[in-house]
C-alpha cells in the first residue's frame, strides 16, 4: 500500500459525503485550518471515512480532538 505521506495519494477521495481529498486534508493541516469551510461535516455523515480521517489527521500532525 502507498503511504499517505506520498503526494500521489493527494487526489484520493477521502470523504465521499463532503468530497474531501487527502491532498485537501494535508493542506488544511499544514495551514492549521482544519476543517476548511464547507468540510465541517467530514467523517460525520456516512462515517465510513472516519477511521481514515483520524489516521490522516494524525499523520499530518493535527492533534486536536473534537
Amino acid at each position, binding site marked *: 500500500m502507498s503511504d499517505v505521506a506520498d503526494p500521489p495519494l493527494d487526489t484520493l477521495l477521502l470523504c*465521499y*459525503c463532503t*468530497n474531501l481529498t487527502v491532498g485537501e486534508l494535508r493542506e488544511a493541516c499544514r495551514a492549521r485550518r482544519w476543517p476548511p469551510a464547507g468540510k465541517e461535516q467530514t467523517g460525520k455523515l*456516512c*462515517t465510513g*471515512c472516519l*477511521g481514515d480521517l483520524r489516521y490522516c489527521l494524525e499523520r499530518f500532525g493535527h492533534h486536536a480532538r473534537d
Partner: protein
Amino acid sequence: MSSKLSGLLSATFAEPAYDHLVELVHQRDATAHRRLTSVRMSAHDAKGREVLALEVDPAREIFDLGAALGARSEPRVMVLFDARYDAAIFPYRPHHYAYLHARGAADAPLYYAVNATLGGVPDRIGATNINNIETYVFRPRAFAERYSVMLGNVSRFATAQAQVIAYYGTERVGHQVEVPPKAHAETPLAADLEGVRLSRVETKAPFRLASYVVGRRAESRQLVLFDHLFTYAK
C-alpha cells in the same frame, strides 16, 4: 449537470457459482436514461488483497458481476464499486441494486440494495443519523438453516475492531471481529441458543463497514438471505 461530481463507494460480497447482476442506476425512464459518470470495480480477497480491478462502462444499465469475476479460487471476495455521479441522477438515496441467484438452485433469486458504504448520504436527504451501529430483526419463523454476518472494511489505512452481537430472547452472544483495510470476514451465528431462536443481530464498529446478514441452506450452503442491516438510531 453540475460541475461538482458526487462520490459513492458501494460494497458487496460475491461467491463462486452465482448469477450476480448489478443495476448501476435504478430508473424506469428509458427515454431519458441517465448514467453514472464513471465506475471502477475492484475485488478483494479475505485479507484485503486486490485480485481484480476494471473500469465498468457507465453506459451499461446492468453490470454482470458474476461474469466479470469468472471462475475464481477465492471462496468469497468483497467487491467495491467506486462511482462518480451527478446528484441529479439519484432522486432517492444513492444506491446500486443487485440480483443474486445460485446457478441451478430451486430457491428464489434474491434482490438487494448494494451497501452504500462511503457516501450516499448527502445532506439533501437528511440522512445524518449515526450509522456505524446497525441491527437486523429476523423473521419469527426460520427459513434459513445457517446464519452469519459478513463485514468488510473499505478503508485505505484504518483497521476496524467490530462487534457482532446475536440476541436470543433475553440472552446475547458477542463476537469480536478485526478487519484490516479492504479485508472481510464472515461471522457465523448460531440459529438458536438452548432452544431459543435467533431473533436479532447488531453490529457495532468505530466507523461504517460494509455489512450484510446472510442465511444459507445447511447442506448446499447456498444463500437464501442476503440483506443489509439497518441503522440503529432513528
